[in-house]
Structures are given as C-alpha cells and as structure tokens.
C-alpha cells in the first residue's frame, strides 16, 4: 500500500452543467493519482431512466469527458466515470465509450485501455429471481417488490459497488466508463484496490462525490482534491476562492441523505457517527475516525422506472378576486365537466391542478395556503394515449374559463388563458423500484469489457 493516494473530483454530475476549467487545471497540476466523476442521479426524476434518455446536452458531456480524459492521459493516471449519461443504463455506457474513442482519435492520444461496465438489469432477470423466492426488499419504507410492480417497470439498473471497477482496473483499464454506480464507490474503488482500509476509502468517496459542494462559499462544478492515508482523509478546495472547512465538510456529510451518520453502499455501511473533523490549513479539512461494516449478505440497490402515460399541460391565470376566493369551486366545476365525459380519474386518466400563488409548490404541506392577488393554474393531464391526455387537459382548462359562480361579475370568461393551447410534455413516469436485491457474487449483474483505444 502506498502512503497516500489523491483523487481529483471535478464535478458532482458530469455533463449536467460544464466543469469549470480553472480549478480543474489547478487540480491536475497537483498530480493526483486518479480523476473520478459521477455522471448520474435519480434526482432528475424517473423519466430519463424509464425512457432511456439523457437529460444533459451531449455537448456538455463531451466537454467534461474531454477535460478529464486529456488531463488523465497527460498524467498517465486512471480516469473513472460512474453512472454514465445521467441514467447509467447500457445506452449511457455505450454513448460515453463512443465519445471517449472520438476524443482519443481527434487528439491522436497514445493507446490506452478502456473498460466499459454495464449494469442494466433485464426485467425478466428480476422476475426470475422473484419467482425463485428471492426477497427484493423495499427501501425507505417501501413494500417488498412484487411481480405486479415489476410488470409496471420499463427499465432497471443495478447500482454497482466497488467490485466491478476494481476488476476493470485489475485488467489494466486506464479509463473506466461504468453504468449506474454508487457515487462514493467509484472513488473508493481505486483506493481499496491500492490497499487502503475500506472505511477511509469509502469516506474519501463520500466527501468527494459532489466536488465543490463540500466547500464554502457555495460553488458548483469546481474541483476538489481528496487524499487518503491509512487512517485519515483530507480534502482541499482547488478554486482559489473556496475553502474546505470543518463546517462545509461536515455539512456535506448530510447533504441529500436522510441520515448524516451512515452511508449505505453495496456490501456494507460507512459509519460516520464518530468522525473527527479538523482544519488542517486554510483550505483543507482533515477527517478521521470513520468505520466500515460489511453486511452479512451482499445486497445491491435496484432502481426502476415505469411509464404512467402521455402528459399534457396547459396554463391559465385568474385575476378576479371573487373567483380567486372561490378557486376550489372553480376547479371542482372543471373537474366535474371532465368526469362527465371521462368518468372519475383513476386507471383511465389522471388530472392535476397546480395552483401557483396559493400552494403550487407545497400542496398539502403548505401551512399558509392564502391565495395571492392573482393565481396561475397549471393543468396537468396524463393518459395512456396522447390524444386522450390532450383532450382531457383542454377540457379541464377551458372549463376554468366557463366556471359557474353565483355572483361572478365577469360573465365573459372566468380565466385568462396564456394561450388556448395544450402543450405536450415528456411522458409521465414513476419510480417503481427502489429496492435491494441480494447477490451471491458482487460481479454477477455486471459485464466488464476491455478494449484498446487510440492511434
């Protein structure tokens, strides 16, 4: 095991908005041992996974991959990208591998070994395991996976741990493009492979996964550098105007996590409840006293998304104070006109009224649902056929215009239509799977392939 290993993290979501070049180059000048970035998230909603699309423009993905690839090849160090192209599906891995080959060709890079790791899971594979009696346990209060819920799922990915990435590096990979991966694991993998303790390696990954979000003041897309030793992790902001402080690093431990003390990854849990944070220099914080416990049974997280239907949206405004006071009556009227023709909402269609200016952002959680002097209503209809969604949305919007209120003065129309038009949104999807699947072998749902790229 070397004394220390440094990893440069340039972005918390490769491609989502472009990496800032300045702090990245400052990071490369520190001669890190690897450059690593995550490129996906379930934060973007279920549509990209379900429809197997990316949500980031390819131009920005290419920009970020090019910066990383050129920096890594210049130093002759590994580059690892996880959750390729927002979703981490096989499509994303293939797309990123194509971009890497293209960049290598255009820059006439010396030959290197590229590994691709696919972790998309066929629905039939999960169905087979369910039928065989395997318990696919629900996360975050969800019920266990049933064949019915699985049948509503269009696409699934397994969130890989360190094992497939270590395998790829063992086989000589210098660039790794991985499918859906646990953010911290893509950083932990090279450190564990080099012999660092799992606790330190996973903590390194945890602190680096969102790049400059672990520093202050708040900045996105700036690089940070993490260094692991046998018992400590230090993290330094690369942007000259940013610092990694005890407060910023500790705050980041709880970002996007229900619990700041435990980080679950494939195969175990990182325990941060006794972590000690110290300011090492102005821009560097040192963390010690983390622990890692392996799970008795190796389990991997599955994410799955299923299509609900085609989605239509339209927009109406209300300014009449009397109508605003009776806005729920107006909506009930419009709903009743839809129900006359289409029956009650349910399997056939869904209809939502978002009342911006009252509780459009928070819905039933809004403690002060007091309407403003004008309201914006966004009408959202979902049905299996686009034509149905469009008609339901139009009916549900135009009847805001024809609402019958006993004392309304404005008898020429009770709503302002921004345009008498229904907009076609991307189809509605739902996260159907947020579960864990036990595995006999950490590599069993992944395919690792190696190829020679360049000249």
């Amino acid at each position, binding site marked *: 095991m070397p004394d220390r290993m440094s990893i440069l993290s340039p972005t918390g979501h490769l491609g989502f908005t472009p990496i800032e070049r300045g702090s990245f180059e400052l990071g490369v000048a520190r001669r890190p041992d690897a450059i690593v970035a995550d490129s996906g998230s379930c*934060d973007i909603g279920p549509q990209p996974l379900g429809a197997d699309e990316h949500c980031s423009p390819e131009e920005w993905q290419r920009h970020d991959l090019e910066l990383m690839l050129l920096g890594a090849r210049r130093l002759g160090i590994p580059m690892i990208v996880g959750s390729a192209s927002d979703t981490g599906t096989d499509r994303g891995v293939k797309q990123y591998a194509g971009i890497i080959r293209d960049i290598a060709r255009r820059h006439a890079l010396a030959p290197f070994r590229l590994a691709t790791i696919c972790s998309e899971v066929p629905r039939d594979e999960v169905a087979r395991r369910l039928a065989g009696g395997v318990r696919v346990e629900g996360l*975050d*209060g969800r019920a266990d996976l049933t064949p019915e819920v699985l049948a509503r799922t269009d696409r699934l990915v397994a969130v890989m741990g360190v094992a497939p990435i270590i395998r790829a590096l063992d086989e000589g990979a210098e660039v790794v493009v991985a499918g859906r991966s646990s953010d911290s694991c893509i950083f932990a993998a090279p450190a564990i492979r080099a012999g660092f303790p799992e606790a330190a390696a996973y903590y390194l990954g945890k602190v680096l996964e969102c790049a400059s979000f672990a520093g202050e003041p708040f900045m996105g897309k700036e690089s940070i550098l993490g260094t692991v030793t046998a018992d400590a992790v230090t993290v330094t902001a690369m942007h000259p105007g940013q610092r990694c402080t005890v407060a910023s690093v500790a705050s980041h431990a709880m*970002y996007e996590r229900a619990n700041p003390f435990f980080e679950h990854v494939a195969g175990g849990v990182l325990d941060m409840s006794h972590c000690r944070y110290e300011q090492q220099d102005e821009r560097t914080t040192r963390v010690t006293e983390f622990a890692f416990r392996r799970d008795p049974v190796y389990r991997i997280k599955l994410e799955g998304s299923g299509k609900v239907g085609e989605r239509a949206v339209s927009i109406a405004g209300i300014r009449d104070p009397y109508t605003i006071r009776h806005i729920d009556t107006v909506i009930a009227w419009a709903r009743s006109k839809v129900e006359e023709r289409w029956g009650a909402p349910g399997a056939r269609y869904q209809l939502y009224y978002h009342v911006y200016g009252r509780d459009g*952002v928070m819905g039933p959680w809004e403690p002060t649902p007091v309407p403003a002097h004008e309201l914006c209503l966004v009408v959202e209809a979902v049905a299996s056929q686009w034509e149905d969604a469009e008609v339901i949305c139009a009916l549900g919007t135009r009847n805001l215009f024809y609402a019958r209120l006993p004392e309304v003065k404005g008898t020429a129309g009770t709503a302002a239509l921004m345009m008498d038009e229904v907009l076609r949104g991307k189809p509605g999807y739902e996260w159907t799977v947020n579960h864990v699947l036990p595995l006999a072998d950490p590599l069993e749902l992944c395919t690792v392939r190696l190829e020679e790229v360049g000249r």
Partner: protein
Amino acid sequence: MTTRPLVELAKTIRSKNAGVDQITFDVIFRDRESYELVRKSGALTPETVARLYGIPRERLTAFVEFDPALAIKFTIRRERPSGSPGERDVFGAQQYAPLFDLPIPVGP
C-alpha cells in the same frame, strides 16, 4: 416570552431529495450558541415539524442533531416518489420555507 424566528438564528435552511421517496431538511447554524439555543428550546422537534407541515408524526423518518455541522436535520417521506405525475418539486428543493418563521423562545 421573547421569541425570534428561526431564519434569524440559522445560517442555512434547505431541503432536498434524499433518494426518490424522501425529502430531507437541514437547519445549519453559524455558531454553537445558536445551535444549542434552538436545540434546547423545544421549538424544533419532530412534533412541531409534523404540526407545521400538517403531516402525521410517522411520516418523519429521521430527526437528528448533528453536532459536527451544528445542524438539526429531519426527513419526511413523500406522498409519491419524486417526479411522478402531479409532482410539485422534483428535487424537493423548495419545501423548507415554512421553517423560517418558526418562533424560537430566546428569553423571558
């Protein structure tokens, strides 16, 4: 009793998805004094949060005090997974505002 709104005592008040089924809330303080004041005030508890958001207590899946970050953190289970039809806040990023006005007793 003298009170001050939480927004005056906290450095950061934020909300964000924690996975696809939950939204987590962070209230972070600049100094230990404000953190301890709010922590011991009894004004920010699972019960007051449940009341503020009009949800049953069981919907809160975590409520922790996180000393290293001078933070109080809680997590609410969503009604539906993030991004489902009818979604209001895909990232869960604007659910914290009602915490601003939470009155914190600061003196007699």
